[in-house]
């Protein structure tokens, strides 16, 4: 009976970890056993899943029973056990944290319902130790290493990992595979590996496994592909037959499948410069590869304060030769419109663009494209036959197409007011002389909501254009101005 004894020790240490999570670990050097006796309530949290544990509480008994039922049910229905990883665990460790909240990327540690409000997380001081201002990878790694040094027994490592996961974004390391591997390295090795068939059937050390899953989950959410080292660590920590390992295998499978699924790939790291970002966004919208991006105005450097007026915002536009030709053909009697702002998401950044468009030409004004009879010198360009293509060879889908007016140009600007956009139109006139004769009407949506504020962060959403207009309909969403 050596095995149970070993496991007893493990249960104790994990019980301690749970205690730490409750915030009662005022003295990290407190002996293990006294700690445990102080916090009997933490015992259910530990969920060691070890039926032979001496200190088995009522919760563990229930859990055991549930586990058995779950297994039996699975066996009876013939459902593969590995395919339903979260059905049984949910009953076991009473936590739905990882899949309930899809808004927060970082799962909270399991929160017991019967506990009072939790004070500050433990190990918080490890992250506070970092010299202020320097929130980078080095200081994060330092914090993780400090944990290892302060806790030789890795006491409370589950809580620490959850905390670290939450902190990663602040340190800007949420996309760094080495940091995730470092976090996984915090787990003690070989301890949580199941050693017999029963441990494999029941979830062995569920809280630790869930924590491991949380690490992988966060990697998944940030699109970080695990590598061989991750695999090696997971095997060392949880063994081959474990849920983190299953998750790892699935990530390996599906990440590679989905990595290149997007036909319009985005660079992994978006450019920081708003002009570059706008260029990227415009290229993303415009399908024509021969379209030319023009920077009409660069942002001045001193507009980081809210006082900057729109004359100093960047204006980046794109126009393809076809659009240029269409604009040149446009009937000057018909106005064209500047519309926007419309939002475009580039990974986690939202940018806004405006379009220059016209209404659809009425059918009577459309020019019929005629085929000159003397066109091709070498072979006839059309045959003089009475019959056309047969229905069976008409490969076009029968779609009801809604015709829209032409879009002549697209721009992204730092400000969404009329003064800025008027500058864009002025810039466009250099390459499109026809634009000087066409009246331009600004149809700007007044507000883009709080997203705008959070995205640009420079000024209030679409301030009413400054006093340069003559007549201005207040509080209307459509501002019109004839522009020449």
């Amino acid at each position, binding site marked *: 009976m050596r095995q149970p004894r070993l496991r007893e020790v493990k249960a104790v240490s994990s019980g301690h970890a749970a205690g730490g999570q409750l915030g009662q670990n005022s003295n990290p050097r407190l002996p293990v056993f006294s700690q445990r006796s102080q916090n009997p309530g933490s015992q259910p949290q530990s969920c060691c899943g070890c039926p032979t544990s001496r200190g088995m509480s009522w919760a563990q008994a229930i859990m055991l029973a549930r586990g058995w039922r779950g297994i039996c049910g699975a066996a009876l229905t013939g459902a593969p056990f590995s395919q339903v990883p979260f059905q049984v665990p949910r009953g076991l460790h009473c936590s739905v944290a990882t899949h309930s909240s899809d808004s927060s990327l970082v799962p909270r540690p399991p929160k017991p319902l019967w506990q009072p409000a939790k004070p500050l997380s433990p190990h918080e001081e490890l992250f506070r130790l970092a010299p202020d201002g320097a929130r980078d990878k080095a200081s994060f790694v330092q914090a993780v290493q400090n944990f290892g040094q302060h806790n030789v027994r890795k006491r409370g490592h589950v809580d620490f990992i959850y905390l670290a996961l939450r902190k990663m974004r602040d340190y800007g390391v949420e996309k760094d595979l080495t940091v995730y591997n470092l976090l996984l390295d915090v787990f003690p090795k070989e301890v949580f590996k199941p050693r017999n068939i029963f441990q494999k059937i029941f979830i062995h050390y569920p809280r630790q496994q869930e924590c491991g899953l949380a690490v992988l989950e966060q990697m998944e959410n940030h699109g970080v*592909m695990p*590598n061989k080292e991750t695999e090696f660590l997971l095997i060392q920590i949880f063994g081959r037959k474990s849920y983190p390992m299953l998750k790892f295998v699935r990530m*390996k499978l599906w*990440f*590679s499948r989905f*990595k*290149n699924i997007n036909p319009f790939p985005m660079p992994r790291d978006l450019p920081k410069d708003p002009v570059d970002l706008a260029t990227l966004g415009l290229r993303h919208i415009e399908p024509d*590869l021969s379209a030319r991006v023009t920077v009409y105005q660069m942002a001045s450097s001193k507009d980081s304060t809210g006082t900057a007026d729109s004359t100093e915002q960047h204006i980046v536009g794109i126009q393809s030769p076809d659009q240029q030709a269409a604009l040149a053909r446009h009937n000057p009697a018909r106005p064209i419109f500047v519309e926007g702002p419309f939002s475009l998401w580039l990974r986690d950044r939202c940018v806004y663009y405006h379009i220059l468009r016209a209404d659809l030409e009425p059918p009577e004004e459309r020019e019929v494209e005629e085929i*000159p009879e*003397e*066109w*091709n*010198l*070498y*072979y*006839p*360009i*059309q*045959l*003089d*036959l*009475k*019959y*056309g*293509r*047969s229905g*069976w*060879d008409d490969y076009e889908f029968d779609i009801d197409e809604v015709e829209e007016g032409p879009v002549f140009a697209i721009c992204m600007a730092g400000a969404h007011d009329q003064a800025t956009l008027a500058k864009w139109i002025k810039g466009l006139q250099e390459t499109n002389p026809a634009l000087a004769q066409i009246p331009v009407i600004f149809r700007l949506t007044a507000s883009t909501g709080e997203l705008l504020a959070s995205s640009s962060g420079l000024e209030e959403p679409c301030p009413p254009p400054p006093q340069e207009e003559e007549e201005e309909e207040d509080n209307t969403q459509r501002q019109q101005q004839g522009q020449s």
Partner: protein
Amino acid sequence: MMIFGLRARTCWALGSFAVSRRPLRSSPRTHAFAKELFLGRIEKKDVFPFPEVSQDELNEINHFVGPIEKFFTEEVDSRKIDQEGKIPTETLEKLKSLGLFGMQVPEEYGGLGLSNTMYARLGEIVSLDGSIAVTLAAHQAIGLKGIILAGSEEQKAKYLPKLASGEHIAAFCLTEPASGSDAASIRTRASLSEDKKHYILNGSKVWITNGGLASIFTVFAKTSVVDSDGSVKDKMTAFIVERDFGGVTNGKPEDKLGIRGSNTCEVHFENTKVPIENVLGEVGGGFKVAMNILNSGRFSMGSAVAGMLKKLIEMTAEYACTRKQFNRNLSEFGLIQEKFALMAQKAYVMESMAYLTAGMLDQPGFPDCSIEAAMVKGTNEILRMYIALTGLQHAGRILTARINELKRGNVTTVLETVGRRLRDSLGRTVDLGLTGNLGVVHPSVADSANKLEENVYYFGRTVETLLLRFGKTIVEEQMVLKRVANILINLYGMTAVLSRASRSMRAGLRNHDHEVLLANIFCTEAYCQNLFTLSQLDKYSPENLDEQIKKVSQQVLERRAYICAHPLDRTS
């Protein structure tokens, strides 16, 4: 008409035939051989027997050929011409004195006035040097052809004698930087001067052969023409421009491969004053002039290529029989032998096609042989489009009634078509009357003739299906058109070699058994190629990859790059 007789089983089917076919049957021979192939028929009269020249003509040709051949083999140094990128003046002078600059210029204007057959024969020798061949072809096949075809009597009298003697060299100026075959995008303009006596010509032309040597240019430019309904339109007009008119400059000669000695360069016209009497043809009629020139200048290419190939075979055979590797002559290796057989076969086919076409063109009247001429030259894809579309236009007109009936669901026509398909699929023997007791083809090539008949028959069926499927939108199906043209070129080649080999057998020419071998080899190969191409034209056959091909090119062109991941790339 034999096919149709076989098929007319029921009286109502016969009735429908009588209606749809009668106009054809009663019409005299207006359609040339190639156009009839599109209907699955062989117009035997045109191609069998192989055209011959009379003994007098032959003597005349040989009278020319002897000295020219001697000159080319003894005096023309092709290596030197290629290295220096220039034909020496004395060589040019000799060419002029031999009359080679006016081969097809009528005799009353000082030319040789050769028939097409004789022109082809001389072209064979002239092509022994590529640079000279190109220079001469640009001069007379296109450069001065406009004056012969569309020029007025005064223009002919003024220009042709000097051009024929080689005192003036001609060039043909059509291509522009922005305009290859698209006549609508020609930028060169000719505007009438105020006194209405001159046109002011402005613009530049590229890739003009003889551009640096020529003193007479046939130039195509846009002019404003008042239409019959009073509107002003830009139309193409042809002009005869002399270098002495002023404002004509040319760029530096382009370097080329193999024909370095010919002169190709850009030609610029800047305010060149062209007298109004130098308009070639009508004002605004330049398009037709250009088309006629281009269509007429093609057939001689075949004999020129055959001439080069024959020379090549001599030179390489010499090498293959003397050089030793592994103690054996090169000629003993199978792969080398295969190459010689291929060259001989190609030369034979080219020669047969060229002289068959020349003979057809020399027939009295104005036979419509534009497709045949294009097929002889037909190595590029634009010409293939021309071949296929011209033929399909012809077939489409004749089949209009039938296709309309099929589309309307006329029970008689539909049943008849289905019946025909059934009989075809059960394996029928096609007999278009080439072989047999009174056949036009010699029995030694009868097998090949049967293959030709089968190909022709199914080609006619395929053309009908294609027209039924695509109608006039077949213009857009360029891959289909290319295949149609390929089959047609093969069919014409098969016909030419069969006709020639039959004649050689019957006349007992030297080495006629060799000809039979070549003819049978070519026919068998072409037959298999045709079968494959025909199955590619079948909508549901596994050989038809058009959809996939289109998709690939579409994806590539969408990104404007080769889009596959590198073989060494990984996802993780």
